[in-house]
């Protein structure tokens, strides 16, 4: 990480203001104005549109193994995804990923 203290605090404050304005948007405008359907339809997909693209390179080329594909980390990623899909539980998925990661690292040396 290579940012000045000022840049980091600037980022924190800008993210805070931006996030607050998003949260305040419609509550802030008096009355119950409705968002157009096409906007709602796109907003519904924001988390699944950003996070998978962020995580894919991290799984394929993890920083912790110097950017080389790593079987233990791949197995952990697969276990997290499968348990998350099966249980719909974020915590169960994190636990499955952590156990698989440490288990695979132990077995593979």
């Amino acid at each position, binding site marked *: 990480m290579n*940012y000045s203290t000022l840049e980091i605090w600037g980022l924190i404050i800008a993210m805070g203001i931006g996030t607050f304005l998003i949260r305040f*948007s419609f509550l802030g405008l008096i009355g119950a104005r409705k968002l157009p359907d096409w906007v709602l339809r796109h907003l519904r997909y924001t988390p699944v549109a950003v996070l998978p693209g962020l995580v894919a390179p991290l799984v394929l080329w993890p920083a912790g193994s110097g950017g080389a594909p790593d079987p233990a980390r791949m197995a952990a990623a697969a276990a997290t995804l499968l348990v998350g899909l099966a249980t719909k539980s974020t915590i169960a998925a994190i636990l499955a990923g952590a156990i698989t990661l440490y288990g695979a690292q132990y077995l593979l040396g």
Partner: protein
Amino acid sequence: MTLSRKSNFWRGLRDGMPFVIVIVPFAVLFGVAGTEAGLSIAQVMGFTIVVVAGAAQFTALQLMTEDAATIIVLATALVVNLRMAMYSAALAPHLGAAPFWQRAVLAYFNVDQTYTLSQIEFDRAPDQPLGAKIAYFMGVAAPLCPLWYLFTYVGAVAGSAIPPEFALDFAVPITFLALIAPALKTLAHVLAALTSIVVALALVWLPSGLGLIIAAAAAMIVGAQTELWLERRRA
């Protein structure tokens, strides 16, 4: 009136309790990941208290470890939070009559958990007085937000003491995958996620984070179009 406010506050608090087991480890993880990435404890706490949005905080942190331009870190994190405009719009008919300062406080606490539970509660009983609705909403927030701050701090303090063998670099990807999997509710969500992955990998040569923003825009369009297509087929 006061009675219904008081009981609504406690009911919100009780309904929010199951989220404690999600929030506590997630907060610890952000604290650990933040200090591991090189933020000071004050900066980690700054994110947690000023932004109060786990997924966006992890997103910013990841892009910062890749030394992305600050404007790209900001834009990507805010895109992750755009869903909250939808929460704001859904809550406005129920809470929009509150005074300005109260709406500002409600907006600060307008997070996934308070929105989700309040929406269920207001759909169930839409005619309760404004004060009772606000009491329920704040009841949900009351334990969750302070625990989010407190356990981020615990993680930030503990983080610097954890050795590299624990492969904490992978805590962030695992957390993201664990957030994504339960969100893959429909074919439209699945196709949006796949689009995001394919486009992000194809554009990985662009400056850090830029490909991700393009991938996110493409994925949102694919999700929305798939939803439309499914609706038309059902009709």
